[in-house]
């Protein structure tokens, strides 16, 4: 199995080619111009993670929405599931910067925290 991607470790943006076996184990990485590129390719193929940022509705604040983010990157495949949980929430002001809004969202071990105060 072959997978192509662009490396985002630095602005160079090397086109990477990854060779994997049936189980998804990385056999080889080509196209990278440095070691970081290889590591990026392996991470992307075995456990791609992303930061999730969105908003939650707030009652009684100066503004109707508060921005939030995951406290650490979460598995890419869990983004939409997390969005569903977040979208069901509604908060009451005041909210502090960095306040934990949802603990261990979707069992990822990662929290949702406020990225502003309201």
């Amino acid at each position, binding site marked *: 199995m072959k997978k192509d991607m662009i490396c985002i470790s630095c602005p160079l943006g090397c086109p990477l080619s990854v060779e994997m076996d049936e189980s998804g184990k990385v056999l080889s990485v080509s196209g990278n111009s440095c070691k970081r590129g290889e590591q990026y390719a392996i991470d992307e193929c075995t456990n791609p993670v992303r930061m999730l940022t969105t*908003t*939650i*509705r707030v009652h009684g604040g100066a503004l109707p*929405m508060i921005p939030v983010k995951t406290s650490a990157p979460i598995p890419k495949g869990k983004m939409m599931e997390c969005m569903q949980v977040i*979208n069901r929430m509604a908060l009451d002001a005041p909210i502090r910067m960095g306040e934990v809004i949802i603990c261990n969202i979707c069992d990822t071990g990662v929290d949702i925290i406020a990225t502003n105060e309201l």
Partner: protein
Amino acid sequence: MQYDVAVIGAGVCGAMITRELSKLELQVVMLEKYNDVAMGTSKANSAIVHAGFDAENGTLKAKLNVQGASLMAYYCNKLNVPYKNIGSLVVAYSWEDMQTLDILFERGFQNGVPNMEIISKEKLKAMEPHISDTAIGALWAPTAGIVSPYELAIAATENAIMNGARVMRNSGVFDIEYKNDMFFISTAKGVIKAKYIINCAGVFADKIAGMIGDESFKIIPRKGEYYLLDKIEGNMVNHVLFQCPSKMGKGILVSPTVHGNVLMGPTAIDLDFDSKLDLDTTIDGLNTIKQEIHAVIPELTTRNAITSFAGLRAHLEGDECDFIIRPSEKNEHFINLAGIESPGLTAAPAIARYVGEMFCEMAPEYTKKENFISRRPAPVRVRELSLEERKKLIEKDKRYGRVVCRCEGITEGEIVDAITAPCGARDVDGVKRRTRAGMGRCQAGFCGAKVVELLARELDVPMNQITKHGDNSKIVFKKTK
């Protein structure tokens, strides 16, 4: 609800006529199909006050044009509408063109246009330093000018309301029945009864006339596309610059606007009868404007274009080229205004008087009001005030201290005024036409959301019910969550 007169169509003619009728002791209603007045030809045209040398001698068009041009200053003063008497130049590039200027001069003279002059290349160059070197002379008509057409319609409407007229928006007419000396007008807002109808429906005037069986004329929508340029280009042109006229109209012109922008256009493309909603600009149309204007003022480019837009002119099918302003042959209580294309805007004040007199002869039972208010108060324009005046104004009402539209310097106070005025703005474009918020170079990038918020607040509806220009032209959909 029963009225004496129903005016159908709230363009500049409809509004001016409604105002004229509000001088009489009667009940008048103006019916408008859109969410605002001046939504048809009146909002997208050249905004020119023509001197009056284009129309054929002896026509109603010629008479009302020349009268209108001389009345415009008076009306704009009374109604507090921006108007500038900057004069116009028809520019000639060949000896053939120069001959055409002679014809125009002669025609203008016969029509009663005062103080025209055929000027030399040198004088033209002195008046218009940026004009192409290929120009060889021009016809100068000092009585021409520029005006804000939609502001004229809005001001006339407000003044009519001050005098007891009623305006119904979103009230498109789909059927008219006549029985027992009374019209029963079916609108989107229910049935309206009226003894008289004035049909000012612009490109739809044939459709409205058809509702009483009058099929004596047909209106072809003639599309004209325009560019509006940033105020940065404002010093490139000082007067209305026409090219020599052709069969399709007066050609593409370039002119300053009353607000200091530059307007170029229109093209002239005849559409099908059923394309009366087509206001799309086209690549071909926009390219034509660029090419033609390049020949007039080579330095003028569209690099600083603020927007492009299209309008439809109500052009009569067939050979008839005069305005039709007369009672219908099918019903003498039904006055048609048809084919009011250029110089319709110029003629509007004269048309209003003409229709007013026609109506008084037809229905002498209505007497003049004694307490007619002829003046519509000037809206607050913070940007036009001196520092001292601004200071005082803001002390009285703090909302005039809060700038919403950065490009044009429009304050919250002015926007609230526009919404709460008689026949106030109901949508974003309505606020824009009344205040100029969003008409600057950022094109509402910053103030757009703020204007939506103010509309929602003042009209007491959620933001997702606010539209750009009525109907389904929503700005935002549901809440995100």
